[in-house]
């Protein structure tokens, strides 16, 4: 089962993601974002990067996490597809090992640019499982 979904937002794009815990939902929302950027089927998990984010609250963590991944993607050209996220700092920080590979235009199909993740319409719901909805500026 895919635990993320790209949803409508008039100007931009919303990503909805769900997971058993907040960490899993954070991993899925990142996969959702990168599924818009690239055809993930063409990418394999042959390398990894480590990402660390510290935020002030869970909502900010979602936004900062996605924006950090965008920054790393555009500066290091590393396209991540799997995310092992562990939370720290009472759910306001995280460490993640992100598996994927460096972009190779001859093998990877890059579809679009995402400018940033935004706070607008950001929702974190916890009822049994964790759900995140976030709007991306594309």
């Amino acid at each position, binding site marked *: 089962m895919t635990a993320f979904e790209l949803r409508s937002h008039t100007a931009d794009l919303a990503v909805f993601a769900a997971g058993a815990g907040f960490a899993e939902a954070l991993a899925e929302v990142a996969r959702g974002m990168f599924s818009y950027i690239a055809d993930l089927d063409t990418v394999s998990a042959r390398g990894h990067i480590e990402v660390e984010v510290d935020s002030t609250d869970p909502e900010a963590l979602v936004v900062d996490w996605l924006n950090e991944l965008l920054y790393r993607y*555009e500066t290091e050209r590393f396209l991540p597809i799997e995310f092992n996220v562990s939370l720290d700092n009472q759910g306001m920080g995280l460490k993640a090992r992100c598996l994927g590979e460096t972009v190779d235009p001859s093998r990877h199909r890059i*579809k679009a640019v995402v400018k*940033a993740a935004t706070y607008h319409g950001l929702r974190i719901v916890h009822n049994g499982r964790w759900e995140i909805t976030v709007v991306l500026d594309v």
Partner: protein
Amino acid sequence: MDWTTILKDQGNCRWELPKDYLAGMRVPGLVFTDEAMLRQMGDEQAIQQVANVAFLPGIIGYSIAMPDIHWGYGFPIGGVAATRVDGDGVVSPGGVGFDINCGVRMLRTNLLESDVRPKLRDLIATLFREVPTGVAESGRGRIRLKPDEVNRVLVEGGPWAVKQGMGHADDLEVTEEQGRIADADPDAVGERPKKRGAPQLGTLGSGNHFLEVQAVDEIFDLDAAVVMGIREVGQVTVMVHCGSRGLGHQVCTDYLKTIERAGHTYGIELPDRQLASVPIASDEGRGYFAAMRAAANFAWANRQAIAHWTRMSFEQVFRRSWEDMGIWQVYDVSHNMAKIEEHLVDGVKTRLCVHRKGATRSFPPGSPDIPARYRRIGQPVLIPGDMGRASYLAVGVPSAMALSWGSACHGAGRLESRTSAKKLLKGHDIKAELEQQGIIAMAQGWASLAEEASLAYKDIADVVRVCDTAGLCRRVARLRPLGVIKG
């Protein structure tokens, strides 16, 4: 939601959103639209966002929305808000957007559609090759900046590109701020935006960004058109829509983080975190302004490089010099920017911070801020439509100063989301359908064409008609697409 019962019709395509619509609004909203377009908005949250913007401390007059308004993040896209500089006014990075100084540049030629048609496919393919979209390469373009040279780009903007041989000094004469806005500080930008953005200089990007070859379809005001070098129906023009790429995106991301935290310490509470604001006079406010201006200069260097490669592409295809083909710039305008401007408030000259988030400056004849050659006709207003319909060339008018702080619309405005456009167009060969209309399109893939197809947008003709009727700008010419490249 029937917005026509909530907003009050003031006549002349002006609709007021009463201040009591939402407790906390400091000023009413003013939406330039007509009944049909207002009904079209349905469940769109754009009007709600107009109300949210009215919460900004120091906002003057109205929270304003253009007829191409649609649901954005924080600010609506098509939103204009002015805050008082001397006093409690705030600056909001969300009122500028992630793509700082996203804007439009227009070039004219002395070629006619009949000259270009036989080589159109070759021309569009050449442009697609010569003007990097930067998408497939994860951002990378063809300009390799030496270390520290990015700082020069951030200070010098368009003139930096011209010095590198990309363009002509005359291009700068007809660029807003001459392509270089003062008080830009590369140190305020920080290392992350530079690292992300520097390799992307000279790229179009994706989304609604494009480069389009057009033909003049109809001229409404020949006198103003001729001043801008537009002489006849069928004349070929070029329009470029793009911004500051990853550099601007990262400046906005980084400052939003700082400002979101700082805003609370200044006691600023807003209904949407994406509206995060700080006083203009605060350290954070000054830092953002200096960084935003640097990103704006980057965007002007970006469009300058793209204009240069456009000329080179025409030279390759037609085997004539660009001067011989008369490829001169008409104008370059920003539509995502906050600027300190002097406006009349209750008859008194007042310094305002005018946020234009998806809105174009529309200054009237005689304004000292527009190029001397256009001072008689007003500032050129460049309004791109969708790739299947048309775009417009307009000029600023005096009434816009009082109505919208000298602003007009910036495009057609989205109607359908990206996901629903793709659903609606499933199975359609958009490229072939455009070709049947005589339009050659080249893009990264099917999805980027589907997301930007005509059905996803309001009809540009309606949007421009509302601006004209409301007194925000005056139509000069309509331009029809011949070919387009997209990220």
